[in-house]
Structure formats: structure tokens, C-alpha cells
């Protein structure tokens, strides 16, 4: 019996996780990605494995997803994670005013926190601003974005999924009824137009999901691309993730990674998603806000500044208050276009859960009764990832 | 999938010092002087064969090599020997993990010694 065929569009975190989940459940998966693995938003994250504490006050649905998935990812893919936890640090009265809500929110979301005295905190992180008033220990972490995706992709490979990188979607192949039957794509490495047919196409194009869905008909997706800037500095000044204990805001987080730290981030709205310039004033803002938390940043060389665009779900509000949770849309239900599912929104931390929900929907549509096992199986070494082209030769 | 780009024609690139760091210059110098000295070693052995042919042959040969052109050649050999030998000391000790991070400074130091020695030998040779 032939396996049901699925095409995943986009090899960001969502795309690779969906590919892995579907392949593991027994579908034949082809992944189309117009560039290399995680070249868009996913790659350009600062690599924070969320404990959920950041959202515990304003966005509890998202916070609960984060803490659950945080614990799962630590278990299944420790090879790409710095599991050192994080701190929420209060520096002034305004920060302290947030304290009660923070404690309550974390308790509501089952995020285990521990309050530390300034002395205890400085013993853990000597480079922190010595004027700090209080701090909370949270189970944050750091991951390597490319390797996180490569790990999932390697596991997908092992179940037979093929990755077609540098293959840009040109159009959907539709049947007479306007239902999606396959895709037509440009292989950028050979400049050839190729086709694949499938039983189902999953649109996991992140901020570009709207453009992709638009190719299948008059579909409107509730995505609000919200870019933010991040600045990396040349020294590992902290061992744990440092958050500002306050409402989510610009430059409220410092993420250590390898031998550097990254300060993030801002939040605004962008026009062109393919290229978003890095604005100097935002870099300066990150520097100033970063120095508030870790004054030694002042004496540290800037290593790089970069920009990524979050695919946030539009619920009629602006920027920071947009929800960080995700949405899985069956276009048969919403737009009467069968054979196309869109998954968007979410966080890197919740990638596996997003894939699980998407795969559940896909299996239900295809009449398959297979349950998700990705929370249990360890992910293979990221170095086992290979491209479709290599497989054909080997 | 694409071919590996290496072709034997690339070997000339061993000796291409453009865009290279000091370590590569050392590598290039060591390779050139090593090959040169090997060539000299065998030429030298052949020439010393004149000794077996008796006093006239050898003394005639020595008179010949006192010509400035041969002296210049001899100076090249001396220079190569100093460069190769001194750089060899650097490679030898760093190869055992000693002072590998200081290889550049060692190279500069040793090459300074080599330059002084070469100049000394040049003056000595051409003034005698």
C-alpha cells in the first residue's frame, strides 16, 4: 500500500517539526523550502527556550504551552540546549510593582519559580547590575536555532522525509474544484521548474504563510508580522537567561549562547518581509537596555545585529499584546479549499506541539488513526540531517 | 551532486601567498626550501664524487665553484638551510603541543635570526 503523500511548505521550526511528526506517523513527506534550513524567522531567533514566565501574566495559554514544551524539548533534544535556567530581575519600583502578578501568573501556569536575595543572585551571576532588588529563578534555557531544526529534520529523514532546499513554491496545482493537489516549484540550484503531487499540503511558511495561502485562492490569514532587533555581544557575561521583571518590553532579555550574549528585542510592524533592515536607533536601545541589566556590556564588543519577524496571530490588538499561541487552519472549513492546512503563530519552544496539533488535523482529514509519539522519542543527532539530493546519490 | 573541487592543478596554490596568514607563508617557505635543499643534497653528493677522481679533478672543481655565480648559489643554499632549519624548530616544538598559540611570535623571532645569519654569511662569503 502506498503511503499517503504530504508536502510541507517551509523548513522553519514549524515545518521541520511537522515533517517529523507526519513522517513518524507514516506519511511520505516532502519538504519545500525556498532557502536553506531555518533561513527566515526561525534561524534568527535569539535562541530562548521559554519557561513561559514571560507570558505568565498576559498570555497564560501561551505560557502553559511553553513550560510543557520546554520540559519535553529538554528531554528529547538535549544536544542543542543550554539548560541553565533563567532569572527575572527587578531593578526599580516599577519592576517591583509587577512582582505580585508575576508570582501569581507563574503559579497559575505551574511554572516553578524561586525568589532569590540580591546576594544570592549576584553569587550566581556576578555581572548583573548590583543595584538589583530581587530576582526569580525560572526554568529558561537556550538553544541553537539551526541545530534544533536540523535535529528534527534528521529524525524526519530517518522516517523517510525528504528535504528540498532552495526550492521556491511557484504555484499550487489545483483540481477543477479549486482544491489543492500538489505544488509547482522552482529549484533554485538548477533553475528548473518541478512538480510534486500530494494528498495534503501543509503551509508552514510562518510570516509568509499569508502569501503562500493566497496562491491557493482568496484566503485571508490573521497573521501580523512583527519584527524585532537583536544584538549579540562578544562575551559570555551571564550563564543564565536574564529577563527584566516587568511587562514584556523592548530590550528586556539577555540570552547567553556559546561565548556570547544576545540582547533582545524590539517590536514593530514591517512592510517588506524578505528584507528588513536593522535600524541603528533600535541597536542603540538594545545596548542601553542591556547595560541596565548587565553594566559590563558597555565594555564589550558588538558582534552582530540582526532582525527577525515573528509571525504573530492578529486578534485586533497591537504588537506586544498579540498572542504568542498558534493556530492550525483547515482551509476546507474556512475557505472551502480542500487539501491545504495552514499552521502559523507560536514560538520556537512550542514547535513540537504545533506539529502535533497539525498532524492530528492532517491525520483526521486523511482518515488515519495514529497518535502522536514525538514527545517520547529522542531526536537523532542533528548531524544526521541530509538533503534530498544526497539521498538520491547514496 | 557536485564533484569535489580538488584537482591536481590546485597544487600550484600551495605556493600562492595571496590572502594568506603568516602560518601559510611559513608553510610555503618550508616547502620551497625543503624541495630546494633536497635537490641540493643530491647535487652535492654527485659533486663530491669528484673527490674519488683524484686531487686535480677536485681542486679544479673547487676553483670553479669560487666563481661568484656559484657563490650566489651557495648563499641560496645557506639561506634555505637557515630558513628550513629554524622554521623546523618551530614546527617541531609546536607539533608536540608546546607553545602552539605562540607560533607567530616564534616564527617572527626565528626568521629574524635567519635573516641576520644569512646577511652575516653573505658578507663573509663575498668578502673572502
Amino acid at each position: 500500500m502506498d503511503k499517503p503523500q504530504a508536502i510541507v511548505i517551509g523548513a522553519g521550526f514549524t515545518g521541520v517539526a511537522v515533517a517529523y511528526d507526519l513522517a513518524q506517523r507514516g506519511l511520505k513527506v516532502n519538504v519545500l523550502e525556498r532557502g536553506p534550513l531555518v533561513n527566515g524567522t526561525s534561524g534568527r531567533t535569539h535562541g530562548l527556550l521559554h519557561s513561559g514566565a514571560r507570558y505568565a501574566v498576559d498570555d497564560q495559554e501561551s505560557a502553559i504551552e511553553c513550560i510543557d514544551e520546554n520540559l519535553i524539548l529538554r528531554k528529547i533534544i538535549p544536544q542543542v540546549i543550554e539548560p541553565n535556567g533563567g532569572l527575572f530581575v527587578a531593578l526599580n519600583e516599577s519592576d517591583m510593582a509587577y512582582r505580585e502578578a508575576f508570582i501569581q501568573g507563574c503559579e497559575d501556569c505551574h511554572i516553578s519559580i524561586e525568589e532569590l536575595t540580591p546576594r544570592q543572585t549576584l553569587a550566581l551571576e556576578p555581572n548583573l547590575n548590583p543595584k538589583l532588588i530581587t530576582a526569580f529563578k525560572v526554568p529558561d534555557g537556550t538553544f541553537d536555532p539551526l541545530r534544533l531544526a536540523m535535529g528534527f529534520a534528521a529524525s524526519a529523514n530517518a522516517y523517510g522525509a525528504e528535504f528540498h532546499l532552495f526550492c521556491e513554491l511557484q504555484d499550487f496545482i489545483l483540481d477543477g474544484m479549486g482544491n489543492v493537489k500538489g505544488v509547482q516549484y522552482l529549484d533554485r540550484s538548477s533553475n528548473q521548474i518541478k512538480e510534486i503531487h500530494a494528498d495534503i499540503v501543509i503551509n508552514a511558511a510562518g510570516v509568509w504563510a499569508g502569501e503562500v495561502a493566497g496562491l491557493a485562492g482568496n484566503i485571508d490569514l490573521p497573521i501580523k508580522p512583527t519584527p524585532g532587533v537583536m544584538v549579540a555581544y562578544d562575551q559570555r557575561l551571564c550563564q543564565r537567561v536574564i529577563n527584566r521583571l516587568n511587562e514584556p518590553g523592548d530590550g528586556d532579555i539577555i540570552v547567553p549562547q556559546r561565548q556570547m550574549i544576545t540582547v533582545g528585542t524590539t517590536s514593530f510592524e514591517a512592510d517588506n518581509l524578505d528584507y528588513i533592515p536593522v535600524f541603528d536607533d533600535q541597536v542603540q536601545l538594545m545596548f542601553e537596555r542591556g547595560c541596565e541589566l548587565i553594566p559590563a556590556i558597555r565594555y564589550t564588543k558588538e558582534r552582530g545585529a540582526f532582525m527577525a519577524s515573528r509571525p504573530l496571530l492578529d486578534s485586533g490588538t497591537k504588537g506586544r499584546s498579540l498572542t504568542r499561541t498558534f493556530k492550525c487552519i483547515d482551509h476546507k472549513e474556512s475557505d472551502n479549499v480542500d487539501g491545504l492546512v495552514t499552521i502559523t503563530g507560536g514560538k520556537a519552544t512550542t514547535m513540537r506541539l504545533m506539529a502535533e496539533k497539525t498532524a492530528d488535523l492532517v491525520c483526521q482529514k486523511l482518515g488515519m488513526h495514529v497518535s502522536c509519539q514525538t514527545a517520547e522519542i529522542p531526536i537523532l543527532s542533528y548531524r544526521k540531517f541530509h538533503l534530498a539530493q544526497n539521498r538520491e546519490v547514496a | 551532486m557536485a564533484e569535489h573541487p580538488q584537482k591536481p592543478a590546485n597544487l600550484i596554490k600551495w605556493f600562492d601567498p595571496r590572502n594568506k596568514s603568516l602560518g601559510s607563508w611559513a608553510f610555503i617557505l618550508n616547502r620551497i626550501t625543503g624541495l630546494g635543499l633536497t635537490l641540493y643534497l643530491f647535487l652535492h653528493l654527485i659533486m663530491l664524487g669528484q673527490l674519488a677522481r683524484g686531487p686535480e679533478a677536485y681542486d679544479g672543481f673547487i676553483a670553479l665553484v669560487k666563481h661568484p655565480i656559484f657563490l650566489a648559489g651557495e648563499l641560496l643554499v645557506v639561506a634555505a638551510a637557515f630558513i628550513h632549519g629554524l622554521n623546523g624548530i618551530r614546527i617541531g616544538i609546536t607539533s608536540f603541543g608546546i607553545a602552539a598559540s605562540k607560533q607567530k611570535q616564534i616564527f617572527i623571532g626565528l626568521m629574524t635570526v635567519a635573516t641576520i645569519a644569512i646577511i652575516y654569511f653573505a658578507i663573509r662569503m663575498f668578502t673572502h
Partner: protein
Amino acid sequence: MRDGFDVTPRLGEGAGLWFLKILTGFLVIVVLIIHLIVNHLIVEGGLLTYADVVHYYQNPIIPIMEIAFLIIVVTHALIGLRSVLLDLQPSNKVLRLINYGLVVLGVGSIAYGIWLVLVIVNRG
């Protein structure tokens, strides 16, 4: 190469040859210094005539040292030459020929050197 490795057993430069190269290199420097001191500083003005050379070789330490020097230099030179040839990517067959060639060359030149030294010593 698909697996990332060239698994065919080859006759390349392992630890042994590498160590020998470093060791002989070091010895060359030591002996060369002695050689230079003896040739140019002790024997005033250098060994420039046939008679000088023959006379020089009458001291029994000299031929022994010269032969040792020759063996060390030839070994170092040929291992070095082989390293360079290895980087030209010879096939195993060619490499085997190179190995034989280098051994013959080395043994030949050492034999020739010993013969030459004996000739000079006997002229004394």
C-alpha cells in the same frame, strides 16, 4: 567518499614516519652545527683543497660522523619529499612505486656516500 571517509587502507604518513621526520630534523640541526664548527672554525679557512679533505678524514670520528649525517639527512629529505608527493594525491599503486623509488634512492645514495668516504679514508 560518500560516507565522509576514504576507507581503503593506504600507505600514508602515520605517526611513525611523522615522528621520524621530526626526530631526524632535530638531529640534522645538531649534526649540522657540529659539522659547521668543525669545517669552518676548527679547520682554519675551510676544507678547500683535496689534501685538506683527505687529511681531515684521517681522524676516525670524522667518517663516522659524516656517514651518520648522511643517513639522517637523506632520511629526513626523503620523508619530506614523500609528504609533498602524498599531497599530489597519488593512487595506491603510484604511491607504492614512489615508496620503492624513494627507498632505492635513499639506500643508493647512502651506499654511494659510504663508498666515497671509504675511498677518501684509504687515500690517506
